[in-house]
């Protein structure tokens, strides 16, 4: 299941960015710094010791993937009903997300990566467009208000580091490819750039108050009284970033089952059972 380094790089950037977007409120400048250092250190140790090849690590990743799918399918379905499809119920949205993930996930890793690569053109194009559209709303004074205070620096850094490490385990050990430090720094740079953009537009205080600060900055866009109310486009961007994280989490479950169960029918049975379990738990959260 070898993939080339560009595919890995793009996938890692997309996954870490998705994690970053949904934890925007819990990330401060310092937790960003300490968390990324901690993650880098851990990833290096994991690379040297082949950590993923231990049975315990695989089992832990399997459990984490289930937890991720439960928790973030719930979050994503609420995000969609809040911002995109206001008239629909979260149950219907969760069902559709999990069904799409199930069908796409079962196609295999290569299909997933090809879909991510294809989508990345649109995702990065809209991210770049977002930067240009929000440039007129940047308030340089907000740089002086960047808050270095955090409620619990240790926990926030740990949380952020965990997300970076989790994204690493979803790609590199499965594809059996070497981790490049360039991938890590590119993803950190992309996140830092977005982090600063949001803070420059909204300010530190408002960033902490809003549920989706990355979407709120696009609510401000009004170019020549014509280009406005474009946040829905960027909500779609947000959705896709997160969809791919859930998709690869699902593949992690499938990968674990394939390792220990030989019969295809049994794998399918367990996979359906786990998906139903995830669906029910995500809807009652």
């Amino acid at each position, binding site marked *: 299941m070898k993939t080339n380094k560009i595919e890995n790089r793009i996938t890692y950037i997309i996954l870490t960015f998705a994690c970053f977007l949904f934890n925007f409120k819990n990330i401060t400048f310092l937790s960003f710094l300490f968390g990324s250092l901690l993650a880098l250190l851990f990833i290096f140790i994991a690379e040297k010791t082949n950590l993923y090849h231990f049975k315990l690590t695989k089992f832990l990743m399997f459990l984490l993937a289930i937890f991720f799918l439960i928790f973030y399918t719930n979050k994503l379905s609420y995000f969609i009903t809040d911002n995109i*499809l*206001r008239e629909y119920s979260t149950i219907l949205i969760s069902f*559709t997300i999990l069904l799409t993930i199930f069908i796409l996930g079962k196609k295999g890793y290569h299909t997933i990566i090809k879909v991510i690569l294809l989508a990345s053109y649109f995702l990065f194009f809209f991210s770049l467009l977002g930067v240009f559209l929000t440039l007129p709303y940047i308030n340089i004074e907000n740089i002086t208000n960047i808050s270095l205070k955090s409620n619990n620096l240790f926990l926030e850094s740990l949380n952020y580091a965990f997300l970076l490490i989790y994204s690493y385990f979803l790609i590199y050990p499965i594809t059996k490819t070497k981790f490049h430090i360039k991938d890590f720094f590119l993803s950190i740079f992309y996140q830092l750039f977005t982090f600063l953009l949001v803070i420059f537009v909204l*300010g530190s205080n*408002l960033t902490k*108050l809003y*549920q989706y600060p990355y979407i709120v900055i696009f609510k401000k866009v009004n170019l020549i009284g014509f280009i406005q109310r474009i946040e829905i486009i960027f909500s779609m961007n947000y959705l896709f970033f997160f969809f791919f994280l859930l998709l690869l989490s699902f593949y992690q479950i499938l990968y674990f089952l394939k390792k220990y169960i030989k019969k295809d029918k049994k794998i399918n049975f367990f996979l359906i059972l786990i998906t139903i379990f995830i669906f029910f738990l995500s809807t009652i959260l």
Partner: protein
Amino acid sequence: MKKIFLILILFLFTGCSSYIELNDLAIINAIGIEKVNNTYKMYASIIMETDKETTTPKTTIYEVTGVNLNDMLNQLTLTLNKKIYLSHLDLFLLNDTIKTQEFTEIINFFLNNNETREDFLVICSKNIKELLEKTNYGEINDLVEINRQEASQAIYTTMYDVINKFTLQEPIYFTNLEITEHVKIKGLKVFLNNNYQEILENDSLFLNYLLNNINTYKYNYSCQDNKFLYLNILASTTNENEKEFFIANELKVITNDCNLKKDEINDIFTNYLKTNLEKFTEKKLTIKNTIRGLYENK
């Protein structure tokens, strides 16, 4: 089978089931809120139809009471057979009865409502109902915006500013409007520590100096024999530290009938600013003027 199942699911997301006609939306473009005897009173200006000749939208004012904003919007749906739509909200009016507790409720509403855009103007007025009935949101928005740009006496406070300042417990400045025959800007109102303080028209210019909100305005000075010095303040920036305000003005001399020299113009304008700004602050004021124009030829 799988493909047929997927195609069937696609039909669920066509948007047909949640389709709403434009005529079925109650588009609210302005809201006025006050508190009377522990209950809120809300005046909502709703776009009903557009005048075919003037193409200006006709609005109707609805008055409802309730215990909070959500409750009032629910009350509104009892009188309207339409879906409340807040995405086009452009003006929010309030008066002295809206204090800390009320601000907390209003801010919570807007922070948790993804439909609204918080870049709408928030102003203060004693005559909320009259303002909404006799004018429209566009007129008020233009009035504040034009004054802010030309005379620098108003402040264009948006809901973003209100949320930000309120949570930081900083003073919130609102443009204060009154209505007699016409709408008029009556200075500013400041909300701090659960109290409002009024700042009159002339003083609001100087307060804007300290808040670094000056865009442009005109200054005139009369010397002997009905002769005048007219200055146009093109730009101004104010920087503040713990002990001092640094104000840098860019002045253009329009008329210099008084035949004043550059240094004299500088002194006159600096004195004018210092005397007016001293009452607002005890900090030291450092004023630097860059003067250009026709004073050398006169």
